[in-house]
């Protein structure tokens, strides 16, 4: 039974030693050690969270960039499209203006030509009339140089004129 009977001396010294050990270790070892482990674990967790956040930020930025790029491209396309439209419009307008202007000029030219033509024709008519009168005068003069011919003609004429 000696083996299973706690001896008072050893109980006493164990109690004192253990309590002193406990307080010394608790104050000078466990507190700083647990504190340091906690701090480090928290900092590691923090770092991991931050890394995660940075990753998310990166993704967000990339997405944003892509969206911006897309938008820019769309804008460019739009601008190009608009420019083309404007260009086409301007060209169309210019063409139309040129057409009308040309038509006007042609019209004017036509009118001018016609008027010139009319003037020229009138002139030609006048000259022809004068010439024909002159020629007729000269022919008549030649024809009626002798008296016989004049009489013949009168006779012819008289023949023609039937007396009713």
């Amino acid at each position, binding site marked *: 039974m000696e083996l299973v009977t706690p001896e008072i*001396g050893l109980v006493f010294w164990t109690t004192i030693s253990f309590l002193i050990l*406990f307080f010394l*270790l608790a104050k000078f070892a466990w507190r700083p050690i647990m504190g340091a482990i906690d701090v480090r674990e928290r900092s590691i967790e923090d770092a991991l969270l931050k890394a995660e956040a940075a990753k998310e930020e990166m993704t967000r930025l990339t997405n944003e960039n892509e969206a911006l790029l897309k938008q820019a491209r769309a804008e460019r396309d739009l601008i190009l499209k608009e420019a083309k439209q404007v260009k086409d419009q301007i060209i169309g307008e210019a063409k139309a203006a040129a057409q009308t202007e040309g038509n006007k000029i042609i019209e004017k030219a036509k009118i001018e030509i016609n008027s010139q033509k009319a003037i020229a024709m009138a002139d030609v008519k006048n000259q022809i009339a004068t010439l024909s009168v002159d020629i007729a005068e000269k022919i008549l003069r030649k024809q009626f140089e002798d008296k016989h011919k004049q009489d013949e003609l009168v006779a012819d004429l008289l023949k023609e004129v039937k007396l009713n």
Partner: protein
Amino acid sequence: MDLSHILNSKKIKLSFFLAVLSVLFVGKAFAVQGNPGQEKAGDKKEAFDPSVAILEHIADSHYWHLWGETAIPLPVILYTNKGFETFSSANFGHGNEAYKGKYYTYALEKDKVKAVDPSGKVDEAASKKVYDFSITKNVVALWIACVLLLVLFFAVASSYKKRVGKAPKGFQSFIEPVIVFVRDDIARPNIGYKYERFMPLLLTIFFFILINNLIGLVPFFPGGANVTGNIAVTFVLAIITMIVVNVNGNKYYWKHIFAPDVPFWLYPIMWPVELVGILSRPFALMIRLFANITAGHIIVLSLISLIFVFKSIAVAPVSIAFVVFMDVLELLVALLQAFVFTLLTALFIGTATEEHHH
């Protein structure tokens, strides 16, 4: 009362040796050479009684035996009904001489200080008045362990202070997983969110038991003492656990004990049962640690004793092979018992501080 009576009884002795026999498979050699009973009857000087030797080795002592006849005498401190007495155990010679102190004459009987009358006979009545507070071998071993723990963990703590926020290094990195293990696998799951308050106690208990278990495995100075295999040490540890558990018990814990959910006329039955529960848990802790460590020491010493029982050096290789095997097993047991004691302490604290949910 003396346990050696039990080990001396023929039946126990026989079954003990049969157990060793069945392990060793050397039945024939044993039958020829080793019947301790016969040996004891023979020449008294030559007789080797393993049970006496083993019990001597696992028991506490007033000397720290080094080798042969060389032993470190340790201080004897006695509290008698007349006052304190202190002297060196060297005064007892090698336990054979009586020493006349201030109040009584003392002698060692089975390494226990007893008051003796002038004729050298043990005076039982006077011995009852003498309380032994000596610095025994176990006390010194305990202090060596404490100093070792303090040096180790102060060093670890200082390296934590030096390397704030950095990865652990050296011995620190060896200790940290153990501390984190105690925290994450013992304290947190059993105690819950209030675990931080109990971490210092759990860590101290764990490392105190572990280091004493390990030093106890070393067969020579500064090892050789059987600290955690001494019931006084496990008794103190268990008492501390019991006090901590009951001091921290919340109202649900006490309600469960004094006003459990049973018809009130069952209370008189429930109270003693619950009271036994309060006492039986630390009692189991005390016995478990004591028995495991003592059993390991007894097995190792028995295997060594075989050499002396057979009186043949030829047995030594077999003995040593088995001792090495046992020592490796004891390393596991040392760790396991530290773990189990801490785990159960955490569990008891957990049940006492648990918030109740219905």
